[in-house]
């Protein structure tokens, strides 16, 4: 069996999500290849080659691959697909955008966001906002799969020494054009990968008030997240959203501040190792899944919490 992993990268480096996908591939078993499609992406390819367990890296470098347009990438994946039994990609917005297009071109089903592998043809995936886990089996000749990062540990990023093979890019298509990107710049850890996250909800009241969370995030080395309500209200940009249709994360520590705990938000964080909830409404559903709940006014609690953290510093 041979498995092709579509790398998530920004041409300069491999994204962490790729490592979780490598682990999922290892659970399936077989020879692992990584496909890097990009522009001036040699560095990303070299990082992929160092990942433990990868047998080969295949690189397609072309100007029209720079911005990962699905119309351009899909034909190349389809061209190499018959060499593989499984095609995997991380369930990031890039992977979710690309893989169904690949699956349909191959006339096969896609299994979205697997969280576990039972065998080479049987996978577990969340449905109904993660309230149900479905075990599904695919009879298709090639399995097209997206992998939810929180379901698998990251593979070691060092230890491998795979050969890197250049492959011919597929032809450029002309029905879509990349115009621009606006990415959130932050010195904080990336939300999907952070070990600690502090998230704000509607209760924060304003964009300005998110500074209270940022200050605590800095003390904890944490990322800042948000509920849908906070994003809709314009307090933070969309990429902060944690939830069923935002980011699904599972940090060691998740602190939910002023978040009521709707089903859809829980879907994005209920696998966190330790959950803390701070909310003035003691009936808020978030308290049902919190390991530690503090009923109180967040504007009083946050400064006290920050102060208590300061007291922790070693003398």
């Amino acid at each position, binding site marked *: 069996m041979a498995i092709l992993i579509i790398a998530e990268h920004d041409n300069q480096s491999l994204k962490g999500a790729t490592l979780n996908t490598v682990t999922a591939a290892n659970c399936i078993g077989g020879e692992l290849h990584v496909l890097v499609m990009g522009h001036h992406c040699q560095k990303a390819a070299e990082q992929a080659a160092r990942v433990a367990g990868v047998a080969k890296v295949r690189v397609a470098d072309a100007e029209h691959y720079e911005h990962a347009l699905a119309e351009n990438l899909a034909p190349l994946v389809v061209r190499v697909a018959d060499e593989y039994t499984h095609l995997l990609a991380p369930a990031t917005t*890039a992977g979710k955008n690309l893989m169904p297009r690949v699956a349909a071109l191959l006339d096969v089903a896609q299994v979205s966001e697997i969280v576990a592998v039972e065998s080479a043809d049987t996978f577990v995936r969340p449905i109904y906002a993660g309230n149900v886990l479905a075990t599904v089996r695919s009879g298709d000749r090639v399995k097209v799969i997206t992998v939810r990062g929180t379901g698998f540990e990251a593979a070691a990023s060092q230890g491998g020494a795979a050969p890197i093979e250049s492959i011919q890019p597929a032809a450029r298509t002309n029905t879509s054009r990349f115009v621009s*990107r606006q990415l959130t710049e932050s010195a904080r850890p990336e939300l999907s990968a952070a070990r600690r996250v502090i998230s704000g909800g509607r209760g924060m009241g304003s964009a300005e008030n998110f500074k209270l969370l940022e200050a605590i995030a800095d003390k904890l080395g944490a990322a800042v997240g948000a509920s849908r309500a906070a994003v809709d209200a314009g307090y933070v940009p969309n990429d902060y959203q944690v939830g069923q249709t935002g980011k699904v994360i599972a940090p060691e520590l998740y602190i939910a501040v002023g978040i009521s705990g709707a089903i859809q938000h829980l879907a994005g964080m209920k696998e966190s190792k330790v959950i803390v909830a701070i909310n003035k409404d003691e009936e808020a559903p978030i308290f049902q899944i919190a390991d530690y709940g503090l009923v109180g006014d967040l504007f009083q609690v946050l400064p006290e919490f920050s102060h208590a953290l300061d007291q922790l510093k070693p003398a």
Partner: protein
Amino acid sequence: MKVLVPVKRVVDANVKVRVKTDGSGVDIANVKLSINPFDEIAVEEAVRLKEAGVATEVVAVSCGVAGCQETLRTAMAIGADRGTLVETEAELQPLAVAKLLQALVARDKVKLVVLGKQAIDDDANQVGQMLAALLDWPQATFASKVAVAGDTATVVREIDGGLETLELKLPAVITVDLRLNTPRYATLPNIMKAKKKPLESLTPEALGVDVRPRLATLRMAEPPKRQAGIKVASAAELVDKLKNEAKVI
């Protein structure tokens, strides 16, 4: 320009579903069913395109059991001009739905398909992209802004790191995300009007599509429940527990 809006009838977003005790499926008997929230946003966007003079007709389509007619009437109450029901009792998976839509796009000479990015029941997030592939049309997924001028759709997409803007040449497929718009409430007069709008019913066989599922669901289960937690009385106590008990700080 004709716009096709696929709409799915799903368990209402506020319902917490339960798995049947034998693990064979989810218990949806007597559970409230509603239009998939993302598809409702898609209908609203298509109707706005019509109001802006960009779309000439908005056709809603739903695939599944007869009850999907309710979802089509909801779409028509928002402003879709007519509805198509592809009626079947069969389990429909995304690839099959994409093929049904492909057949309708050809039949109705549709130039733009706008649909929700995912259904909140299966959370698959596949139909739009699969349809675009089958039609060899460009796709823009997770749209938070759509502008159509002449033959071009300019779409702002929500991606993991922020926002991205793409330009697509029509015909195209756009899947919509939460923040694209806030759907209007269907007024009572519009609900009444919707009852009179045309609703046709077809079968997958009539469209020449094999809808057999490709994935077999072996079992369903609820994830392990979290242990109940405790309430703490103060921030100081919280920090103490996080450090000394949970050991996460």
